């Protein structure tokens, strides 16, 4: 290779690759020292080649990482607890669901309940879908014959399993652990999650079990498993109203659209809900995914409903199930399981900031886990 006659790109490439002979290197350095314009160009060209080739190296590394992640998370052996081997029909639905999850954005969860199929874009449940391992799962399912789900029902206090599938919000019915959330948070077209935990404002997790539900009204009543559990120091500060709230009532809500609790306020804009559903209200209230199951309160501290869904992405329309759906469900329980709802609101006369402060302990994130 003659340093003076060779293409500058080829020179730079050979130089970077370290494939030049001693003589060639000496000749190159001589020319670089003698010719400043050549040196500048050589420098720029070398930098470019190095960048392009490093960028390629990074790309290959990233794609390998992705691959390693998939194979490693797929290879995690299930704990030796109880296993349910899913039937082939089930994997098919999960892989279809995984496909759907890839297509939709991470934070958007279109309700796929059969009755809502045609109108799903105008009526979006506001739980937060966590797509997580679904992509990996879809790939893995092609290869793997058995998918084992670990249903760990031991009584030991265990940290939550690692794969949050969905998050919503819940609020207390009694101070000793009964609470309510939206049914679609804990059950969707893939069935129930393996476990449901609540996470309070201190970040502590508590496992919870389903007590009863009404899929049609989208209400689920659950209870924290831990014996002696208390949401707060005192009994619930709010009460539930069985009466239909008036049009124009100012309302507010607290919920967990992300890991921080969020407050928003608005008003009842429709006496009935989606497509005239009389068990619901239509609200002008900005909410985010993850706020399904949030309490809807009027200014006096009465729970008037539970948030379930919102309208099309560009609307502020939100839908809530009326509190009556919750009390109706409670009345159906045998002996009402000694659930005594508070009779009076203790926060009726407080300014909003104090109301929120009192409510925070009784409002929490609901996290659904599934392997």
């Amino acid at each position, binding site marked *: 290779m003659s340093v003076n006659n060779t293409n500058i790109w080829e020179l730079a490439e050979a130089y970077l690759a370290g494939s030049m002979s001693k003589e060639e290197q000496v000749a190159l350095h001589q020319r670089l020292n003698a010719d400043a314009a050549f040196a500048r160009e050589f420098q720029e060209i070398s930098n*470019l080649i190095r960048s392009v080739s*490093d960028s390629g190296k990074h790309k*290959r590394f990233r794609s390998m990482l992705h691959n390693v992640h998939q194979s490693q998370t797929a290879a995690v052996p299930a704990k030796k607890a109880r296993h349910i081997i899913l039937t082939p029909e089930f994997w098919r639905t999960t892989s279809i669901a995984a496909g759907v999850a890839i297509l939709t954005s991470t934070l958007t969860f279109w309700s796929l309940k059969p009755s809502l199929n045609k109108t799903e874009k105008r009526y979006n449940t506001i739980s937060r879908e966590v797509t997580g*391992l679904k992509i990996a799962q879809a790939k893995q399912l092609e290869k793997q014959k058995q998918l084992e789900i670990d249903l760990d029902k031991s009584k030991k206090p265990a940290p939550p399993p*690692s794969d949050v599938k969905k998050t919503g919000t819940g609020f207390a019915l009694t101070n000793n652990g009964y609470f309510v959330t939206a049914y679609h948070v804990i059950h969707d077209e893939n069935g129930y999650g393996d476990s449901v935990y609540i996470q309070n404002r201190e970040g502590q997790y508590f496992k919870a079990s389903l007590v009863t539900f009404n899929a049609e009204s989208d209400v689920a009543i659950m209870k924290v498993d831990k014996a002696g559990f208390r949401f707060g120091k005192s009994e619930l500060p709010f009460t539930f109203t069985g009466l239909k709230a008036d049009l124009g009532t100012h309302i507010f809500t607290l919920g967990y659209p992300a*890991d921080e609790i969020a407050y928003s306020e608005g008003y009842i804009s429709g006496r009935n809900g989606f497509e005239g559903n009389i068990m619901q209200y239509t609200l002008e209230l900005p909410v985010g995914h993850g706020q399904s199951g949030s309490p809807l309160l009027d200014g006096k501290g009465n729970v008037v409903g539970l948030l379930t869904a919102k309208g099309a992405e560009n609307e502020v329309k939100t839908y809530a199930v009326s509190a009556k759906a919750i009390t109706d469900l409670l009345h159906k329980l045998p002996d009402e399981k000694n659930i005594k709802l508070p009779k009076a609101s203790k926060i009726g006369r407080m300014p909003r900031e104090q109301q929120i402060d009192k409510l925070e302990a009784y409002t929490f994130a609901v996290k659904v886990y599934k392997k």
Partner: protein
Amino acid sequence: MQSPLNTEQQLLAALADGQRVATEQIYRQNYHIVSGWLIKNGGSSTDAADLFQEAMVVLFGKAQEEDFRLTCSIGTYLFAISKHLWYKKLQRQSREPVALHDNTGDEDEDGGLAYEDDVNAHTERETHYEQLDAALEQIGEPCRSLLKAYYHKDKSMQEIAAEFGYTNPDNAKTQKYKCLARLRKIFYAGLE
């Protein structure tokens, strides 16, 4: 089956070289630590996968440096980098200052700053690569595919000559230099 790489230096050298065995080993030993921490702090498993992979890329980038030295174990490094990346992300999302240190107290001030430098270098590098990619998208065919085949997919000039219909590798190579010249023009024009 290959035996595990014994020392951290060997492991890092193999990682810098892009070897899968090393990558897998580091992944296996450290992923659950980072993901456990993140999930405890309110992240999801998707966040954990993204975060850990980003931290691995930071380590990979650092391992490429000639005077590369790690003053702590790979595990400590990955964990610290992950935390920095996560707090940075939270900061970006909230547009408010977030304390860059949590109270786990396992990194001293100097160590924290060193990690921050590495994260910043990583961010700069990524921006640079993005600019390059943007320029690459503009150079037109067959240049774009040819350069991608050589630099991104690591194909040989023989393979490229066959794939793109050049009579021999030397012709393909001449074409590659022309393409690089074009990339240079667009890339530096874009930076001005």
